[in-house]
């Protein structure tokens, strides 16, 4: 009994000695020397932004590239004197695409950062969505689902999957590859990504009387031979893909092997240059990729400059479209920070306000001009169309410059007011 008492005291004493209330309460916003109101993640000399990346899971290829793009921008910005008299610092964590890891990392990271420049992974976004709203942290998800726009603190840089599909279908039709009343098949990954792409194709199909066959798959399925066999049986004139790159490879290869050979239209994340080294490479000539950010080797000055910087930085990962996108996102954040600085308010509320005031963020063509002024609506409806090309770094070349289809103009996103 004595030993027990001693043990209790030994265990409890240090805890109580460490003084009650070691944990602080909520942080309050304060003014600083230069008259700018500051809050979480901002000091007199530094602004900290968070990156929750997938550097080891299934999307490590894309997420690593985006992270490098983020880093390149920070380097450039700080070299030119920073923003609002402050240097920007990135706080990067890897959740490996595991929601439970992200859920624990978030409360560790959140009190240190002003906002999130990158948050990769739809299960992660789902698990953290409410926290982001409660904590009022403006966040750029590496996901382009218009479903996410219901959360006012989400800032999507680029257009959304539904709009991509609408624009892409209209492109196919303009090229004479598709006509009203045709049968088309849409293979989509179940979840926020696929459901959003499907929303777009359904909208377009209704307008143009297309007979849409929907095929729901999961993100880990990779062999689509049986699916494409079925679509062939239904006589489809085009295949739409809101899928992972591996699935795109399988669908293209199966389509060629089965002699289907119809055009294939894919959302931005459905392509990865690595496909050009796979056995599916020869089947990719019918693939069209729709995206609102430029490919890595885009023929515009800003993209070339970033590519150069990427080479110079000595990153060992092969580049992809994530690099210019990551840079562009950070650039948009730059505009928002500058706006907030002009408003003398670098608190989270200030950032949110500044975002809504950002109605024409310019990324020198990396992404179409963005307008965050109308809550719930995609910031742009313009897209590029690209095709795989093994001869250029980054693996895709344009076939259509920025444009916006009429059907995309009239389309109403789920949370649009």
């Amino acid at each position, binding site marked *: 009994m004595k030993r027990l008492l001693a043990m209790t005291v030994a265990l409890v004493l240090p805890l109580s000695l460490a003084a009650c209330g070691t944990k602080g309460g909520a942080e309050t916003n304060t003014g600083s020397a230069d008259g700018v109101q500051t809050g979480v993640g901002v000091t007199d000399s530094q602004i900290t932004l968070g990156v929750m990346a997938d550097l080891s899971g299934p999307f490590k290829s894309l997420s690593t590239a985006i992270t490098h793009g983020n880093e390149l921008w920070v380097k450039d910005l700080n070299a030119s004197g920073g923003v609002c008299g402050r240097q920007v610092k990135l706080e990067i964590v890897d959740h490996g695409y595991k929601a439970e890891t992200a859920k624990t990392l978030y409360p560790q990271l959140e009190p240190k950062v002003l906002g999130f420049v990158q948050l990769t992974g739809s299960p992660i976004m789902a698990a953290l969505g409410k926290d982001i709203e409660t904590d009022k942290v403006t966040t750029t998800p590496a996901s382009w689902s218009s479903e996410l726009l219901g959360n006012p603190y989400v800032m999507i840089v680029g257009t959304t999957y539904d709009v991509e599909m609408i624009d892409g279908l209209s492109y196919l039709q303009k090229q004479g590859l598709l006509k009203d009343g045709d049968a088309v098949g849409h293979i989509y990954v179940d979840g926020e990504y696929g459901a959003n792409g499907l929303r777009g194709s359904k909208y377009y199909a209704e307008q143009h009387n297309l007979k849409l066959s929907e095929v729901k798959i999961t993100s880990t399925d990779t062999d689509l*031979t049986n699916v494409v*066999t079925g679509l*062939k049986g239904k006589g489809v004139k085009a295949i739409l893909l809101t899928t992972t790159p591996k699935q795109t490879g399988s669908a293209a290869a199966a389509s060629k092997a089965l002699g289907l050979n119809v055009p294939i239209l894919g959302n931005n994340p459905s392509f990865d240059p690595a496909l050009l080294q796979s056995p599916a490479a020869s089947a990719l000539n019918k693939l069209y990729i729709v995206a609102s950010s430029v490919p890595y080797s885009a023929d515009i000055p800003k993209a070339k400059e970033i590519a150069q910087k990427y080479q110079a930085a000595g990153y060992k990962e092969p580049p992809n479209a994530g690099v210019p996108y990551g840079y562009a996102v950070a650039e948009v954040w730059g505009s928002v920070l500058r706006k907030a600085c002009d408003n003398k308010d670098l608190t989270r509320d200030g950032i949110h306000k500044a975002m809504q005031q950002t109605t024409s963020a310019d990324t020198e063509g990396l992404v179409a001009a963005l307008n965050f002024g109308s809550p719930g609506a995609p910031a742009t409806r313009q897209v590029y169309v690209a095709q795989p090309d093994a001869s250029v770094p980054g693996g895709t070349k344009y076939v259509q410059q920025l444009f916006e289809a009429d059907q995309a103009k009239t389309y109403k996103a789920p949370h649009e007011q």
Partner: protein
Amino acid sequence: MTTFLQLMVNGLGKGAVFALLALGFVVIYKATEVVNFAHGSLVLFGGYLVLVTKDHIGWAAAAIIGILSAGLLALAVERLLLARSRHADPFSLALLTIGVDVIITEEIIRRLGVSVPFIGDAWDAKPIQLGGITLFRTHLVALLVATVLITAFFLASRYTNWGIAMRAQAENREAAALVGIRSSRVTASAWLLAGLLAGIAVLFIATQDFSGAGLSRGTHSIALAAFPAAILGGLDSTVGAIVGGVAVGLVDALSTYYVSFAFAKSAVFLVMLVVLVVRPAGLFGTRETTRV
């Protein structure tokens, strides 16, 4: 009708590979009553060695190295781990293989990094057209290899000393030992054989034709999908492995089209569940007798 035929062809081709995988489970189970949960990691290991060597020594030599190393790894797992815990029952040893599986799989997935891991160079993405039906070369070769190997195993287990020793041990370990059968040799050879089969199977799995993904975590999942094949047929039956493998391939292909792709994955398991409830030891498995 063309669609139906094409689906049957797809299903049969995949079934052949599932049968090869299922045979890997059956060989070990027959000899030791252990279910090898690490089969998927053996598949990955063989494939990984093909991948890292093929650019240096050519695909054919790399394939042989891959097959042999998967066999040797299986042998090593048996000799170094399972054989050391003699008092453990088959149930505990099966659990042990889960641990082995986690370690090998995670390490290989880490090593794969961003490589392009397709390793069926000799037959991948070279389909043959036959009167409106597409025959995937990978499937054809797999069908041929599976037929030869399964027949050979069937004959060997019937007519060779090794096969008789294995069956005797499966019947009754103590009695087999009494008549002079060296249990450790039979067990070791069964593991070696299962490993070799895993090494062969991966050459068909990590292809555009079969999995569309090359070597990855998905390769491991496919080995998991072969579980229903082995169980469906009966874990101790060679014939069962064939029937189970083909059944899994066909159920998958047909339910994709006639029900939905989302349902197909569950369908395979549900068919297995129904078979098990009706025949608890699988279609061709021997019924366990209850001892008091």
